[in-house]
Every structure is written in structure tokens, then in C-alpha cells.
């Protein structure tokens, strides 16, 4: 039992060390972000993953990497206010095509696990989103 616990501890420690080794300090949006969007409580939230990358001029992004992924059409950072604007032609929670407009605030910038929170709107639906850099 102790051996098993020690193994799990070492595994987690190793994971922590390897993840921390990937820490980057470049453009604040570059990285993989996890979170959700939706209206109201936890039951109505939809999983959200974003891969963002600064190419020197623009931030390119992919929403929910995988078979249902779609690219961000717009992703801009206003570094004077640390606000983020994103637009994409994706799908809503029912899988129907929808144009998203998201505006958020980048916070805790000095942390590896910085966050973006804000509004996530499509059509007449007003939702919110939160993302945490992982």
C-alpha cells in the first residue's frame, strides 16, 4: 500500500515538474486554455478548450481541438487594458452553426495559470465564458 502511494506521489511529482518545465513567459495569450462557456449555472456550461499561438503579428487559435474543432477568425489583445476579443464561426450547444463574439479580461498575467473571463455571445444568446491557461 505504501509502495503504491509512493509510486502515485512520484508520478504526480514528475508530472508537475514536467509541466512546470513547459512554462513560457512570452506572449501572454500563447498556450492551451481550458474552461467553459454557457448561461448561468454549472449544469448549463459547455466545455471549452483553446489553443492560442502568437506568430509575431497575429494570434491564431483553434477552438476545441479534435474532430469538432474550428479556428478563431479574430483574436486580438488590447495590452493597454489586457482585454481580449475573439470571433469564430463555430457551433452552439445544439451543434448548430453559430457566430461567436467573445470579449474577456486577461488577469493574473504573471502567473502560468492566468485567466480570461468575459462574455460569450452568439445570436441573441448572451453567455459568459472563463478560461484558464494550463
Amino acid at each position, binding site marked *: 500500500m505504501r509502495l503504491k502511494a509512493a509510486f502515485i506521489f512520484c508520478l504526480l511529482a514528475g508530472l*508537475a515538474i514536467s*509541466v*512546470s*518545465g*513547459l*512554462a*513560457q*513567459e*512570452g*506572449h*501572454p495569450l*500563447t498556450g492551451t486554455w481550458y474552461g467553459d462557456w454557457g448561461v448561468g449555472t454549472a449544469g448549463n456550461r459547455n466545455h471549452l478548450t483553446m489553443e492560442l499561438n*502568437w*506568430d*509575431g503579428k497575429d494570434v491564431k487559435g483553434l477552438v476545441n481541438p479534435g474532430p469538432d474543432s474550428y479556428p478563431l477568425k479574430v483574436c486580438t*489583445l488590447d*495590452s*493597454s487594458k*489586457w482585454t481580449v476579443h475573439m470571433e469564430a464561426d463555430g457551433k452552439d450547444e445544439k451543434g448548430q452553426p453559430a457566430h461567436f463574439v467573445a470579449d474577456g479580461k486577461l488577469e*493574473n*498575467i*504573471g*502567473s*502560468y*495559470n492566468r*485567466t480570461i473571463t468575459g462574455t460569450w455571445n452568439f445570436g441573441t444568446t448572451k453567455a459568459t465564458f472563463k478560461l484558464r491557461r494550463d
Partner: protein
Amino acid sequence: MRPRLIVVSAAFVLALITVLAAPRLLRAQTPQAPQGQVQAGAQPGAQPAQGQPGEQPGQGQRGFGRGARGGRGNQPQGPSKPTPRWPDGHPRLGAPSEDKGTWGSCCGSLSNAQTPFQDWAKALLDYRRNNEFEPHTRCKPSGGARQFVTPYGTEFVELLDQQKIEIFDIGGPHTFRTIYIDGKPHPANLVPSYYGDSRGHWEGDTLVVDTIGFNEGFWMDRAGSPHTEKLHFTEKFTRTDYNTMKYEVTVDDPGAYTQPWSNTFNMRWSAGQELFEYVCQDNNFAPVLLIGNEEKVDRSSVIIP
């Protein structure tokens, strides 16, 4: 009554002299920061080296303690000896075999008011100046000019038979960078790393070092000038005399700056010093730079990035 008054007065005067003289006496016993560690180029907006992570924050500014700005050896006195040379005529960047010594730290901030930042990079630099969470304080290696601002300076070891030069950080992460001088180009498909891939060649008495392949896991200078993986660093090392190393650096990073930019500094020889054991994790005096102060500790992650 009168003799007693004289004794009391004399004691008072003696105590007064002691109190007034003590700071001067103490200062005389404390090693002073080497003059060469202040930037020589007098670049507008440039700053001298600040407190060294791994040491108590602010120690560098106050200049107390051994090697507060790198180098705890003897500071050279009087006129410098000429530049030491190898038999083939090239300057020796490290200590000649009959001597020992290291280079003190050189450059707090590479950037200044004229630096062509992209907007996000300038904003991030400003943020970092107010919220210092530098990876170096977490004992991570630091490439670029940041290598030359580690506590206790750096030691250059020239391995001519292997056609490479090792630069050891004495403090901080206590690691080293390799500069290959075998004439081979950078490898293709470099995996980004803290020190990147450095290739050097001699132009007269100047070692020119070209480095690419950096990761984004460090600050490239003490002030926190941002960079991306597109960073291309060109350094020129010229030992102008025994005690002085001129250090010229050009930063080309289209991910963070609108055009290449340069700066120049001097490193000062710290005579008699050798590489010694330094364990960054032990007795780290920079917890504020690790996780913030007691009023504002970053607890957003179980992982210290």
C-alpha cells in the same frame, strides 16, 4: 564634583565619536560593488543590475554582503594588465593558467526608452516591473544577457581542444551554456531551450556569438524584457584589457519587437574567484519573487511555474 563631570563628558564625547564613526568603519569592511558592473555605455534609460534572485531582494541595490553584484574576489586596483592571449594570439576570455578569476555581472536591463517594443511586449514589461515572478528566482536557467546577471558572476572556461567555450553561472541555477566554435552551423529543427544553440567565431579580437533556439521560459534580462521563440541573439565579447570585457548584444525578435536593437555593457574581472558550489534551492532569500508578498500570494496553481 568637577573631576566626575570631566569623566562623564569625556565618556559622552567618546560614545558620540564611536556612533558617528561606526558606519564608516563597517563600510570599509564590506566589499563594495565592482565599478565595472555598472553599464559602461551610459545608454539612455538603461539601468544597473538590480537585486539578484536567489539572494535577498534589493541586495544588489544596497551593495552589501559578498558579491552583491557578482564576484566576491578581489577587485582589481590600479592600471589593468594587458589582455591575456593564447599562443595563437586570440584573447583569453577566462583566467590564464597561472591565475584565477571570474566576471562580475554586467547588465540589469537590456531595453530602454528607445527600445522598439511591440505594444504587448511593452505592456508586459511594465507589468513585470510591478509584479516580479521571474523564473530565475525559481532556479530556472536564464538565457541571453540574463546569464550575466546571476549572483557571483560567471566563469568562462575555454576548451580549445574540443572547440567550445563553457560559460558557467556561479549563482542562480548554477548551470552552464556551451558556445561551439567549431565552425559548424546551427542544427536544423532545434528543440527550444533556455540557453538556445550558440555558435561563435572570432572577428579579430572579438568573439561573435550567434544564438537561436530559445524557449520562452525565462526573462532575457533582469528587468524582464519579453521575448518569444523567434529570438535571435548576437553577442560580441571583447576583452579590452585584463580586467574588462566589453559585451555588445543585438536582439532580433520579430515576435516581440518591431526591429532589431542593441546595447553595450562592460563586465569587470573579479580576481581570485573560482567556481564554487551554489545550490539555488537552499536558503532561497527571494520568496517574494517566487510567490508574491504575504498580502498577495499567487495561489492559482499547485505547480510553481
